[in-house]
Structure formats: structure tokens, C-alpha cells
């Protein structure tokens, strides 16, 4: 999970907090490539990376 706002994400999966939308985009891309997962946008500022 990659989130900008600390109040919207919590739970079991590893969460990466970032400071800006650009940073979020970049981190999401890197992590998705490394984990071979796919980035989904939950539209509340949170991206989740899922391996399908």
C-alpha cells in the first residue's frame, strides 16, 4: 500500500507513506515492478499493489 494520508491506511500489508503525488507514483511503479504486482488506485489517495 502506498498512501499520502496517514489516517486512511492501516492494517496488515506493508504500507509506504509518501509526501507527494509524484513520489507516490514513482514508488508505486518501483514496487510494482519489483513484486511483479499491479498498481490499483483506490481514489482516496491510496494505491494498492496486488499480485494477481
Amino acid at each position, binding site marked *: 500500500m502506498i498512501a499520502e494520508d496517514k489516517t486512511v491506511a492501516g492494517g496488515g500489508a506493508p504500507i509506504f507513506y509518501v509526501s507527494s503525488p509524484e513520489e507516490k507514483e514513482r514508488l508505486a511503479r518501483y514496487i510494482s515492478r519489483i513484486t511483479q504486482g499491479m*498498481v490499483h488506485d483506490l*481514489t482516496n489517495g491510496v*494505491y494498492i499493489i496486488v499480485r*494477481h
Partner: protein
Amino acid sequence: MAELASILTATAVGFIARLYMLRTDYRQYPSYPQGYVIHLSIGLIASFLGAVAVPALLAENYEAATFLALAATQFREVRKIERETLSSLEPLELIPRGNAYIEGIARVFEARNYLAGGTSLITSIVCLNLARLWPLETAVVGGAAGGFLTMWFLNRMMVGKKVGDIARVRAAAVHFDGPYLMVEDVIIMNVGLKEARQRFLQDGIGVLIEPVDPDSKATLANLGQRQAILHDVSSLLGIQMDVGEPEFMPLLRRHRETGALAMVIVPAEKNTEALLEAVRRTPVLESAVRRPLAAKAGRLADSHRE
């Protein structure tokens, strides 16, 4: 003498029939010399068996004739081998064929041996009959002609339906609704990365496959059929994707009311006409065919909607 000539002619014609059926086609398989050799040798055995059947009966050698039945087991083995080979290669395909498609291909390979055998059987019957009335050369030529006619006829019979026969295939607009990738009003998937969205908009092509009747609607809903379409399209046009980029895995999603299939693909060659043609020419899998209209309940459901 006539028997020998007939056996040779029939075997040759059967072998040619098998050779003719061995074109590398849309399945892109087999595509290497070893694969050809395997199928040609089994095809040769099949045509030989077809060729000796009638002479064996005429010579009242019934044991030889019963060996034909034994041969069928061998050809079933061909199907098993094809299935195993393709299944074991499946994890290495970027876009898998899917089990339904593999089963279809394996069945075709088994059937082709029977067709080769049948062709040589007909050839030998024609040849032996003609040999009673006419000189041997005429009989051989006549037998071969009969064999080629059978080959042509059997091949025509074996042509199955294509997706283009059961559905209208047309290009459709690709757009985004928030993070949702859409083809007209069908949601395909949620794409998070802006970069990926950009690529979809720039290089992606959307396709709508609209079934023409309830039968084809049910057929197209089959997951094996959908996977076959995806595999064929991506093997014919290539895809812009590598391992670890699941975003660009082409997907077919179904419109929940109309049953139309929507697809987005980012092909290596952006050519909409070629893409539509590839979809249209995908075979309708035997295992996917459904005919609800053949049953009363299906017809009722089709005629009245509440």
C-alpha cells in the same frame, strides 16, 4: 499386383493428405522440423493402415483387419502427447493458450490421423474397384483422384466456425473513468499508474465483440474461448508487455447485459484492422460451444423478457 499398387498409391495419397494438413497455421504450431517429423511418421502409419485394410479383408485375413482397431489406441496417444507437450509449455507463454484451446488442438491432431487413414482407405477402395475393369495405370490414377477428392471434402468438413461467424467484431473507444480503464461502457480494470494510463490511451486499441444471438452469447462467455481469443490475438500482433507488467496483460471483460466482450490490448504493431481480423479468425472452441436455443427453456428465455 493390383493389391500392391493399390496399397502404395493409397499410402502415398494418405501421406500427402497428412502433409497438406500440416501447414503451420494460426495456431503457430508445430513450427519446427522435429515436430513435423513426428506427425508425418504417425500420419504415414495411419495411411498405411488405411491402405491395407481392404486388401486384408479381400485376402480373408481378418486378424490383420482387427489390427486397425488397435491403431486407434495409438492415435489417441497422439492426443495425449500433444496435450502434455502444450500444457507443459503453457507456463512459458506470455499469454497462455488456456486448457480449452489446448484440448481443441490436441483433438485436431488426433483427428488428422483418422482423416489420413480415411483418405487412404477410400483411395484403396476406388483403386481396387477400378483395377477390376481397367488397366492398372488408370486404376492408380483414378484411385489417387478419388483420394484427393476425399481429402478436399474431409478438410472442408473439418473447418469449424470462427468468432467472426458468431459475433460482430468492431473497434471501440478506449477511455478512462477515474482510474477505471473502459471500452465504451464496459469496465476493464483499475489502472493505478499514470504512466500506464498514458500508454493505454496512446497505443491501446479497444475491441467490442458483440454476439449475434443467445447461442453465441453463451459461447463467448466461456472463459476458455476468451483465453483463446487473447492468445491468438497477442501471438499474431505481438504485445507491448513483459513479465512483471500485469497492467498490459490483455483482458476480455463481459458486458453484463448484452454479453458483448470488451478487450483492450496494447499491441506491438498498432493496426486496428489487423487486430479485428485476428479476433474474427479465432476458432470457436468445440468445448465452448453452447446452444441454449436448442432447448425449450432457452427459446422461452429468448422470446420473453419480464
